[in-house]
């Protein structure tokens, strides 16, 4: 990996607001052409990091480099980085075309070139028919696409997107996701995308950085993040998971021997272990099979069923009171156990992971 492949290098960035630290030494490298997602709960510092990259916040420590050059001395209007703002921030007194041309004209495009480029970009986001409207005359989804077109038009080196889809309804959001991903591939610009919707992150990203309270928890591909989370926070935040308290007997070569709450021994891949020998066994609900009581790794009592359309969720409880959720496909062959019956659960070998707090 040469430095020219790294579009944005975030190196140990610390950002404080008074006594409050919003970013505690955050480091990550975003490659050229990459769809990179910042994922984390509300208040974890995603917007702060984006604003630092765009130049609206000065960082207290560390450096942000764009293709190898420290951008700290550059004010926002001198950074070849554009942002799609969370609330779009379209200029209300300008038409769609004028909005899109704004950045082009400011960065030295001639009027004619800028108009042509604006046409092209509006075609890309399928808004050619709306070119002469004012933002107030557009739907939320259309406004979002104007914001995207406006930010894409000047061909920035990096595009920052702060929860651009949060204002859209589910159907539109899914459509725009596909579009956005396609645009990213076509333009080859590095996208840094902020969301707290984990499904959005998993479906769109090349890589994801999971953040919590100003720390990076894990960086990896969607598959790595989902299937091999490195700690309890990541496992819990990405998708649904069951976290069973277990006692660790031994760990060798990445495999742990643990005792389940049922007293049953179980061996699984180990990511991290607490120093006191306890840990959490993370088991995805879809990686569990039902079997007759006593025939699996642990027995549970069925408490309720939740119908989810494609799936059915069973809420069950282990003898020591811990909850387990099991997800079954809604197929004709699926036999659902009665409420209050005791059934066995078989955990798919290799699908469970031992994690520290």
């Amino acid at each position, binding site marked *: 990996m040469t430095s020219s492949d790294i579009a944005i290098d975030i190196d140990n960035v610390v950002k404080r607001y008074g006594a409050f630290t919003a970013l505690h030494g955050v480091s990550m490298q975003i490659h050229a052409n990459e769809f990179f997602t910042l994922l984390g709960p509300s208040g974890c510092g995603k917007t702060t990091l984006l604003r630092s990259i765009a130049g609206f916040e000065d960082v207290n420590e560390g450096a942000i480099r764009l293709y190898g050059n420290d951008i700290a001395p550059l004010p926002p*209007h001198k950074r070849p*980085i554009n942002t799609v703002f969370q609330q779009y921030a379209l200029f209300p007194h300008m038409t769609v075309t004028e909005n899109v041309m704004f*950045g082009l004209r*400011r*960065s030295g495009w001639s009027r004619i070139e800028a108009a042509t480029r604006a046409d092209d970009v509006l075609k890309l986001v399928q808004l050619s028919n709306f070119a002469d409207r004012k933002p107030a005359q557009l739907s939320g989804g259309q406004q979002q696409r104007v914001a995207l077109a406006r930010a894409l038009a000047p061909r920035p080196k990096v595009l920052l997107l702060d929860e651009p889809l949060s204002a859209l309804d589910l159907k539109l959001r899914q459509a725009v996701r596909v579009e956005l991903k396609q645009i990213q591939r076509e333009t080859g610009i590095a996208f840094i995308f902020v969301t707290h919707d984990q499904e959005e992150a998993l479906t769109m990203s090349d890589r994801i950085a999971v953040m919590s309270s100003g720390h990076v928890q894990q960086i990896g591909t969607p598959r790595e993040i989902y299937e091999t989370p490195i700690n309890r926070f990541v496992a819990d935040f990405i998708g649904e998971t069951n976290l069973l308290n277990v006692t660790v007997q031994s760990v060798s070569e990445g495999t742990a021997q643990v005792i389940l709450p049922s007293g049953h021994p179980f061996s699984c891949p180990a990511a991290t272990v607490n120093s006191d020998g306890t840990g959490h066994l993370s088991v995805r609900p879809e990686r569990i099979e039902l079997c007759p009581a006593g025939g699996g790794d642990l027995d549970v009592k069925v408490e309720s069923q939740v119908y989810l359309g494609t799936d059915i969720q069973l809420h069950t409880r282990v003898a020591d009171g811990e909850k387990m959720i099991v997800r079954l496909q809604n197929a004709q062959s699926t036999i659902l156990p009665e409420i209050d019956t005791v059934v066995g659960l078989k955990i798919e070998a290799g699908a469970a992971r031992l994690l520290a707090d």
Partner: protein
Amino acid sequence: MAAGAPDGASSKSDIYAGNGPRLMLPVWVFIGLFLLLPVALMGVYSFLTKEFRGGVIWDFTLTAYDQFFLDRGLFGDDPAKIEWTYIGIFWRSIWQAGMATIMCLLIGFPTAWFIATRDAKTRSIWLFLITIPYWVNLLIRTVSMKFLIRDTGPLNEFLMWSGVINEPLGLINTNFAVQLGLFYSYLPFMVLPIYAAVERYDFSLSEAAADLYANVWTILRLVILPVVKPGIIAGCILVFVPSLGAFLAPDLLGGAKTFMIGSLIEEQFKGNAGNWPFGAAASMILLSIVMAVLLIYARSQTKGDK
């Protein structure tokens, strides 16, 4: 159930928008009684004949307008020439009011911007401070201004004492003194609407513009000013219109050279020397000018929105 709905005269959205016929009635009565009726009366008076002790005789004539625009010599039998006296006074008034408006804008915009960008608590304190002087009667404030800027007043004395100037500035009885007086009289009418517009301004628009390669001045010119323009226009109208008809500032600060429309009209209705139809005609002409300006502005606005 909405009262106006069954007869189909108004839709529900009209009622919720506060446009229901019954809700609008008091408004129409008020406008009719206190706005349209007086203007109509003034219009009628401008076509009547003057009575020598003030008041009018109910004889319809165009004399007042004739007197305003045309010069027929001392005895009224020369060939008609254009009478420049009153047109000149009008022109000077427009100029004075325009200058006062520009001064208000130059000082008012930064002031409004400053207040609107404070945090919510201090904002109301600043607004209160801005309005405090306006609890004092306009006459008293204008007289105070006269004392402040006259040749032996504190301003000149201070400047001479500190050695900035050797002799008084001679501000009093100049056009500038009148502009200063108008500026001081109507400044809050500029500050408040602009404040309201800036307070609503979404500062993420400035960030978006900076993100799209605009420097501070470009942001001001291409984003901030156009977005808060309605507030600026409102402020300019609110300062310009009363300045145009003002008579206190020109009388007290300007002296005879700076006679303005307001004083001209005031004289026609004062004491026995007045001429009511002529005063009414001058008022109608003033009103027409103001209306024309407002209409042209409204036209340009609706066109721009399409």
